[in-house]
C-alpha cells in the first residue's frame, strides 16, 4: 500500500496557509495565487480545514435536538414550504410592481425615473450577487457555526 506524496505545490500551499513562507517565496507564491485558480482552491481548502479544527468545542445538548429536528420530515417540509411560499410571494409582488409601473397612467417624468430606479437596483443587486457567488468558495468563515 502506498500513500500519495504531496506535490510541491501542495507543500507550498500548506506552508503558505501556516504562515511559514519567508518573504521572497511568499511574494512569489502570492503572484501565482493571483494567476492560478487551482492554487487558490488548494489554499482555500487548507483554510477550511484549519478553521474546522478550531471548532473543537464539544456539541451542546441542544445541538442533538436541533439535528434531530432538522431530520424530521414535518420540520423539513414546513421550512421548505414556508421558504418557497415566501420567495414566490416576493417574486409575484415584484412582478406585479413592474407590471403596474409599465401599464399605469404615469407622467413620463415619474415613470422613467421609477423604471431607472428599478433597473438600476436590479443591476446592482445582480453585480453584488455575482461577486458573492464568485468569492464564496474562498470564504472559509461561512462554515463557522459559533
Amino acid at each position, binding site marked *: 500500500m502506498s500513500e500519495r506524496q504531496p506535490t510541491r505545490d501542495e507543500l507550498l500551499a500548506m506552508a503558505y496557509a501556516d*504562515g511559514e513562507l519567508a518573504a521572497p517565496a511568499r511574494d512569489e507564491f502570492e503572484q501565482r495565487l493571483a494567476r492560478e485558480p487551482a492554487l487558490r482552491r488548494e489554499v482555500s481548502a487548507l483554510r477550511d480545514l484549519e*478553521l474546522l479544527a478550531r471548532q473543537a468545542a464539544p456539541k451542546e445538548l*441542544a445541538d442533538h435536538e436541533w439535528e434531530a429536528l432538522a431530520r424530521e420530515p414535518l420540520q423539513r417540509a414546513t421550512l421548505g414550504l414556508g421558504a418557497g411560499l*415566501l420567495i414566490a410571494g416576493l417574486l409575484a409582488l415584484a412582478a406585479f410592481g413592474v407590471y403596474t409601473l409599465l401599464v399605469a397612467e404615469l407622467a413620463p417624468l415619474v415613470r422613467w425615473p421609477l423604471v431607472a430606479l428599478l433597473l438600476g437596483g436590479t443591476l446592482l443587486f445582480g453585480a453584488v450577487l455575482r461577486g458573492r457567488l464568485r468569492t464564496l468558495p474562498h470564504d472559509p*468563515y*461561512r462554515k463557522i*457555526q*459559533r
Partner: protein
Amino acid sequence: MILTTTDAIPGKTITDTIGLVRGSAVRGAHLGRDVMAKLKNLVGGELSEYTKLLAEAREQALDRMQAEAQARGANAVVGVRFASSEIDDGAAEVLVYGTAVRVG
C-alpha cells in the same frame, strides 16, 4: 503564532516588541438568515443565525490580525482584545487588536 490576552507568555521571553496589530471584519447575514432570526426572536432562545454571524466576523478579524503580525515578523501577539460595534442592522463588526512581539 501564539495569541494571548495576557501581557506576557509564561516560559517565554519577549525579545522584540513590534507594535500594534489589528484586524477587523464586518459581515452580514443574508435575507434568509435574517428572516429566520427575526422569527426566532418572537419566541425567544438563541438566535443561532446571529451567533454564527458574530463568530464568522470574530474568526475573520482574528485571522487578519494574525496575518498582519506574521507579515511584520512576529511570532506572537500579546494583550489581545476584542471590540464590537453595530454598523448596520443584521451586520456584525468585530475588531481585534494586540501587540505583536517576537518571543524566544
